[in-house]
C-alpha cells in the first residue's frame, strides 16, 4: 500500500431511502462487515442526487462518492433511477475526461434485500479509493485541510 497506514479514504454515500438505505440497514442488522469509511446521506431517490452534490463533495475533500439506488424497474417513483443513470453516466465520463480518477465516483443498484451486496460494494469502492490515494484535486485551498504550497 503506497499510502501511510493511518490514511483512511473518506467516502460519501447517497443512498436512496427505499432500497439502498434499507439494504444498508439490513447489512447492519445481519452483522455484515463493511468498512466504516462511508458517511451516508439518505436521499428520497437516486434521481435526487444532482451532479452539483458530487462535485461539491469532491471539492470539500471527500475521496470518493457512491450513489446507490433501486434496481431499474423497482424505483418507488418509477423513473427516478433511470434519470439518475443518465446523469451519473454523463458525470462519470466527463470527470474521467477532465482527469479525475474513475474510482472517485461510483454508483450501484442495491435493493432493500441485498444487505450482502451493499457491504461488498462499500468494501470494493473503499479498496478502489485506497488504491487511488487521497483526493488532491483541489488541494491548494484549506477546504480539505491539506494546505499544499499554492502552486497556481
Amino acid at each position, binding site marked *: 500500500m503506497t499510502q501511510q497506514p493511518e490514511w483512511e479514504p473518506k467516502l460519501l454515500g447517497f443512498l436512496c431511502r427505499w432500497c439502498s438505505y434499507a439494504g444498508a440497514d439490513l447489512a447492519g442488522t445481519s452483522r455484515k462487515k463493511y468498512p466504516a469509511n462511508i458517511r451516508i446521506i439518505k436521499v428520497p431517490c437516486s434521481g435526487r442526487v444532482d*451532479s452539483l452534490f458530487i462535485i461539491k463533495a469532491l471539492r470539500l475533500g471527500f475521496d470518493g462518492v457512491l450513489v446507490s439506488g433501486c434496481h431499474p424497474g423497482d424505483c418507488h417513483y418509477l423513473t427516478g433511477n433511470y434519470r439518475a*443513470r*443518465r446523469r451519473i453516466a454523463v458525470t462519470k465520463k*466527463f470527470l474521467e*475526461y*477532465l*482527469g479525475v480518477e474513475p474510482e472517485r465516483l461510483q*454508483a450501484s443498484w442495491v435493493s432493500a434485500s441485498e444487505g450482502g451486496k451493499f457491504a461488498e460494494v462499500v468494501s470494493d469502492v473503499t479498496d478502489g479509493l485506497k488504491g487511488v490515494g487521497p483526493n488532491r484535486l483541489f488541494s491548494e485551498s484549506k*477546504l480539505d485541510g491539506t494546505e499544499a504550497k499554492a502552486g497556481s
Partner: protein
Amino acid sequence: MEQKLRQEAKALLEHKKVDWIIGFAPGSLKFTATPLITNDKDDTERLVINPFMVNNLADFLTGLEGRVGIVAKGCDSRSIISLIQDNKLAREDVVILAVPCPGLIDLAKVERLVGKYRDELDDISRDGDKVTVTADGQKKEFTASQVLFDHCLACELPTPQEYDILLSEPRPPAPELETSGQNKAKLKETPPAERWRFWKNELSRCIRCYACRNVCPACFCQRCFVEETEPQWLMPIPRWQDNLNFQIIRNIHVAGRCTDCGECERVCPVNIPLRSLTREMYDIVGELFKFKSGMDREAQPLMVHYEQEEAEDSFR
C-alpha cells in the same frame, strides 16, 4: 440573399406577423457583424448577411416577449429547436429565416497564420473552399479547413431543417471531424493527472465574467447555481477551483442542449479552450445515448427521457 432577408423581415414587421426581428447588422470593427434586435421596420434596412455572423442569436429569444422573426444559421436553428423542446419557446412564436451557412472564418486562426492582427488586415474574401487574405497589399491564400472555426468544421447541419423562410440554396453538411477535434484528441492522449493540471492552469486565468454562460442559448436558467448564496455552492471569487467547478457543472447542465455553436470559446477574453469541454460533453451524450441536440424535432429532452437498457456499465 440580403435583399430577400430585408424584404421578408420588413414584411413580417409590417403585417404584424412578428413583434421583433433578430438579425445581424454591420459591425463597428473590421470583419465583424453585430446582433440587431428591433421592432422598428426601418431598421430592417440595416440587416446584413456576411461571413462574420458568429453570434448564436437564439440566446436572445428567451429575453423577448411576443412573436419573433430570427435569422438562423444551422447551429442557431438547432438551439431554437432545443429551446422549444425545453418549453422555453412555442414553435408558432418563432419565424425562422434560415441562412444556409458556409462555415464562418475564425479571425484568431487567420491572425496566427498571417502573423498580423485582425485590424491590420485589408480584406478577407472567400470563394468556395479558397480564402484570400490581403494585408499590406500582399495576398495570401488558405483553404477553408485552415481558417474556419473548429465547430464549423464539425458542423452537421449547415442548413436549418426547421424553418419558415429559406433565404438561399441549402448546403449539404461536409463535416471534417478529425481536423476540428485536434485539440481535444491531443488532450485525451495525455495522462489524467496532466489533463487535470492543464484545466487548472487554463482556469486560473478565468476572471468570471460569465460571457461563456450569458452568450449560450442553452444556459437559460433564471437564477444560476453560481449565484446561489444559500447554500453557497461556489465562491464568487475567480479562484481556479471555483472556476473549474463552474465549468464542470455548466457543462453537465447544458448536456443535451449544447449544439456546439462554439460561441463560449470565441467570446472568452482570456482564450480558455472551452469548446474542448463542451464538445467533449456533446460527444459523450452522442456516444452514450445517440442524442444530437436540436437535430430531431420530435426528440424528448435528454435528461427527461430514458431507455430501458442504456449506460449499463456506469452502475455496479
